[in-house]
């Protein structure tokens, strides 16, 4: 008998704007020790379906209309709140997408791990601490005896997710629900977390429901896959069947949107150096220690030691006119800072940036403004990069009017032309950012970036906050705009498969230094640096057999590395 079997589950949201059918009549089941992946775009109802089982869907507006979900013989839908609470803590555990917001910043890791044991299960404090340390060891955290006294902010994103997994496993659950556990993480960290989940699952025989928008991520980990679209399961089957002979059109579309292959080399003039970065350094002081007027520093005169973070350390490279340079690195490698430093959005410590023959670092501030027209930036998070109080028209019109590129009379025509360029409907002109989806928001942001007809654009992870299908559309848009307006671009991303798809050359950054810079094809064929190889092996492949093989290799490499470091 299946551990969890869901039958005809229907969940609807009764809102002011009418009924939203979040989940319609879905059935799925998970056996002990099995992994089911639920894949779909955001808004497809994949998370709602799982939270509905646990009674975590807010009611009202949510309502479970019909269906049954048998877990160990108990119907979760009919169960009382008290029974559900017991099941939630003991038998079913959840790992959320963003570890930063799931951990309480004011409690130490140890307190958060032991709390459920001491309060609900009557374990003594020392017993609970020992269990916590064991569990942290299990999820691959070094020095767990000391780390339990640390606070969440002292951990990196990947470490935090490990702690979340430890927390979920403390109760020895039978079913683990992972809601996009790796979406907020780097590729290398993602690979490690995926391997960890897989290993722990085998060890404890846990059933796993893995929710993701990315088919590529689940290829190696899932036994079964259910593809969801608009509340319905459109296709369900063994992983191999889904990947090798998908029947549903939507599944095929999902599979085809995984970026793969390399971009054809653009015809760019090899000799025309458009932008040159010479020995660029950008150092920051740690937290407040630089602000000499802050109270802390006023009263601690003796402690004047400044801790410097070397975000960009002695980086030199050049970009040719008309090319797309991919910049890859993990979070914290200084790739975003480098992008900002090139655009003079962040102060540089040393070195210079020569843009089309002009040394930007020596430019007086008033001249910089006129240079801004020629170089623009596209930001990562389309939710915070648009002013929520400005409608699309005003947002696109602002740079045009400010730089006097068009007259006030012609501005609307120009704005509509821009909107057309980035694939937005005219009717969107009067709408505000919150009325758009992530992909559409990114289109607006791109429209704003190209409004001043720049020659050079820095795109800082423009697709990493987006679903795979939307990501493919935005990448296409960027490629077509680059082609149409003859743009030069620096494309920053932590995802090598995306960069491979879009860039002519790739630069790899690690700890503020440029590790390697090569043409895209060469870097994949003959990576010369160990770090680059590591990045390349971390890319999940959208092919179950190859992916399992890759995971095996990656796991070995990982073990080798940890052994070396010890």
């Amino acid at each position: 008998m299946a551990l969890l079997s869901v039958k005809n589950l229907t969940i609807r949201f009764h809102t002011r704007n009418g009924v939203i059918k979040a989940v319609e009549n879905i059935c799925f089941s998970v056996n002990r020790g099995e992994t089911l992946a639920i894949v779909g775009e955001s808004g497809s109802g994949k998370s709602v379906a799982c939270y509905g089982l646990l009674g975590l869907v807010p009611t009202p507006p949510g309502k479970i209309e019909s269906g049954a979900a048998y877990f160990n013989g108990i119907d979760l839908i009919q169960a009382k709140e008290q029974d559900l609470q017991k099941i939630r803590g003991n038998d079913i555990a959840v790992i959320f997408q963003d570890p930063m917001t799931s951990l309480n910043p004011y409690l130490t890791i140890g307190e958060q791990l032991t709390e459920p044991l001491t309060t609900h299960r009557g374990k003594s404090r020392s017993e609970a601490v020992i269990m916590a340390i064991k569990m942290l060891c299990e999820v691959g955290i070094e020095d767990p005896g000391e780390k339990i006294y640390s606070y969440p902010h002292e951990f990196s994103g990947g470490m935090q997710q490990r702690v979340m997994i430890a927390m979920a496993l403390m109760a020895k659950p039978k079913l683990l629900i992972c809601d996009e556990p790796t979406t907020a993480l780097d590729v290398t960290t993602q690979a490690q977390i995926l391997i960890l989940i897989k290993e722990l699952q085998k060890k404890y025989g846990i059933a796993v429901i893995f929710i993701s928008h990315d088919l590529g991520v689940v290829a190696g980990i899932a036994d079964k896959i259910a593809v969801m679209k608009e509340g319905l399961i459109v296709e369900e089957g063994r992983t191999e069947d889904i990947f090798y002979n998908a029947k549903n059109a939507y599944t095929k579309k999902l599979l085809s949107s995984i970026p793969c292959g390399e971009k054809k080399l653009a015809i760019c003039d090899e000799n025309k150096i458009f932008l040159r970065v010479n020995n660029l350094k950008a150092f920051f002081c740690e937290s407040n220690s630089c602000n000499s007027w802050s109270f802390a520093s006023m009263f601690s005169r003796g402690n004047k030691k400044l801790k410097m973070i070397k975000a960009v350390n002695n980086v030199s490279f050049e970009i040719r006119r008309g090319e797309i340079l991919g910049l890859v690195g993990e979070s914290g490698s200084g790739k975003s800072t480098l992008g900002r430093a090139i655009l003079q959005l962040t102060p540089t410590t040393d070195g210079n940036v020569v843009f089309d023959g002009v040394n930007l670092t020596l430019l007086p501030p008033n001249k910089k403004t006129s240079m801004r027209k020629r170089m623009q930036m596209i930001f990562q998070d389309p939710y915070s990069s648009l002013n929520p109080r400005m409608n699309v028209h005003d947002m696109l019109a602002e740079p045009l009017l400010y730089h006097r590129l068009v007259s006030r009379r012609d501005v609307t025509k120009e704005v509509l032309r821009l909107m057309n360029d980035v694939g937005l409907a005219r009717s969107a002109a009067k709408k505000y950012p919150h009325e758009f989806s992530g992909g559409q928001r990114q289109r607006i942001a791109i429209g704003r970036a190209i409004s001043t007809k720049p020659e050079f654009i820095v795109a800082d992870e423009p697709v990493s906050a987006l679903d795979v299908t939307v990501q493919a559309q935005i990448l296409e848009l960027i490629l077509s705009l680059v082609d149409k307006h003859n743009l030069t671009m620096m494309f920053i991303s932590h995802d090598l498969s995306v960069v491979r798809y879009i860039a002519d050359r790739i630069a790899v950054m690690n700890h503020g230094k440029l590790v390697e810079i090569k043409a895209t094809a060469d870097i994949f064929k003959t990576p010369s640096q160990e770090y680059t190889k590591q990045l390349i092996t971390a890319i999940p492949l959208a092919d179950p057999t190859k992916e399992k093989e890759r995971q095996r290799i990656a796991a070995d490499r990982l073990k080798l590395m940890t052994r070396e470091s010890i």
Partner: protein
Amino acid sequence: MSRPIQYNESPLTQILPSIGKSTSLWMDGWIRLKKNTLAIVSLAILILFCAVALLTPVIAPYGYEEQDLLLGAASPSLAHPLGTDIFGRDMLTRIMYGSRISLAVGFLASSVAVFIGVFWGAIAGYSGGRIDAAMMRLVDILYALPFMIFIVLLMVVFGRNILLLFLAIGAVEWLTMARIVRGQVLALKQQQFIEAALSLGLSHWTIIRRHLIPNILSPVIVYATLTIPSVMLLEAFLSFLGLGIQPPESSWGLLISYGVETMEEYPWLILFPGLFLSITLFALNFLGDGLRDALDPRTSKD
């Protein structure tokens, strides 16, 4: 749900005239506000009160100094609809004259406070570093000054003057506003759209004006609606101490504080000024809430 403006894919010529207004946040806000009945009724009441206050010398039934000592404190009647005080002065007239002072102090002093506070806070928060530290230390110093001594000094140096009263109250009330705004701006500064505006080459002043201030309107409006009543009461307190306006001139706060003394014998002396003050405050609160919702594109209550 109906959105304020709904287009289907209409031809360019139809969209063109309706787009292209640069003040669209305010225009959209007004359109949304018009759908909020409570806010509009409140706005109408406030406008009515202000109009009456302006026209008082023309339409008041009696002069504000006219006494009828023989009559004394009389309960409401046809000749004196809101009764008279112990000197036989018509309460309706006194409340109308009082509204001139109270509303003027309330609105002018609060606008001064809001205006200075918003810009001071926004500039401090946006600049950060030493400018921020210096600006906020000045706020702290002013906070530390005993308010009463400050006002007594002002009155002694410049003489008693209604304009000075506005200034004195405004000068104290903006401090809190500046702190609230600075805090909001510090959080907002981290948002990427500010960086995006910088990378577009906009000047700092444009960013503060177009990107920062519209996004901090919610707390500003809420605090402003709280400031107006507190300013009116402050004026009453100052007048009661003899530092504000002096009888026979009156204000709502002053009328109330005199009314309290004779509350048991002549309840209408406190009832009617209190009623008008309450209505004004209610109207302000409803209008403030309406404005806050109307100016936030995300609340689609319409």
